[in-house]
């Protein structure tokens, strides 16, 4: 069982290492992830929201849905733990 798990892990790792060949170099400012959407946020976030911390501006305003459902997820986790663990006291 353990040998099987080790073999599966090593195969997955080799596939992922093979995949890193196509990645852009680490820390490259011209990589595709850095060119597409984020220059807009860096250039315009302060002017549009007056918040110097760009991460807070994107978290609270541009991607508000993400944060809203994150709160809902935490809320559901609290509900789930209470309903799994608490016993009926009657």
């Amino acid at each position, binding site marked *: 069982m*353990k040998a099987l798990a080790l073999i599966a892990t090593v195969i997955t*790792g080799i596939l992922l290492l093979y995949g890193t060949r196509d990645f852009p170099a680490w820390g490259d400012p011209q990589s595709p992830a850095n060119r597409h959407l984020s220059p807009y946020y860096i*250039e315009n976030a*302060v002017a549009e929201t007056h918040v*110097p911390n760009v*991460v807070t501006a*994107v978290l609270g305003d541009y991607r508000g849905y*993400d944060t809203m459902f994150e709160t809902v997820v935490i809320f559901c986790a*609290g509900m789930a733990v209470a309903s*799994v663990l608490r016993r009926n006291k009657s």
Partner: protein
Amino acid sequence: MDGMLQEVVAKYNYWIYVVLMMIGFYAMIGKRNLVKKLLGMNIFQTAIILFFVSTGVKRGGGIPILDKYKVLAEGIDPTQIVNPLPHVLMLTAIVVSVSVTGVALAVMQRIHREYGTLEEDEILERISE
């Protein structure tokens, strides 16, 4: 030889992330204790979050907290600041990871209350009895 060295310098971070992910993956499928499985899942999550954050790094870039009046007056060059978008997405992922940990620990306590053990093979034995 020189090209290979350049390749190693450009990619060694990614290789270490893959090694971390392999450790977490092995703990998830190879270990029998449920708490060990959960620790492995947390390691897996941090490896993936590390990979996502590292896609936003720019060499020589500053942190994404800007000087408000200077930016309003003269604008800013986007290549000087690291990419804030992966940070936002991964902030949400960390929050979800702690919720998942809490729910999993609650379910684990319920299993312990029911079967008296947290080892996977013993639980399977009790179920089949």
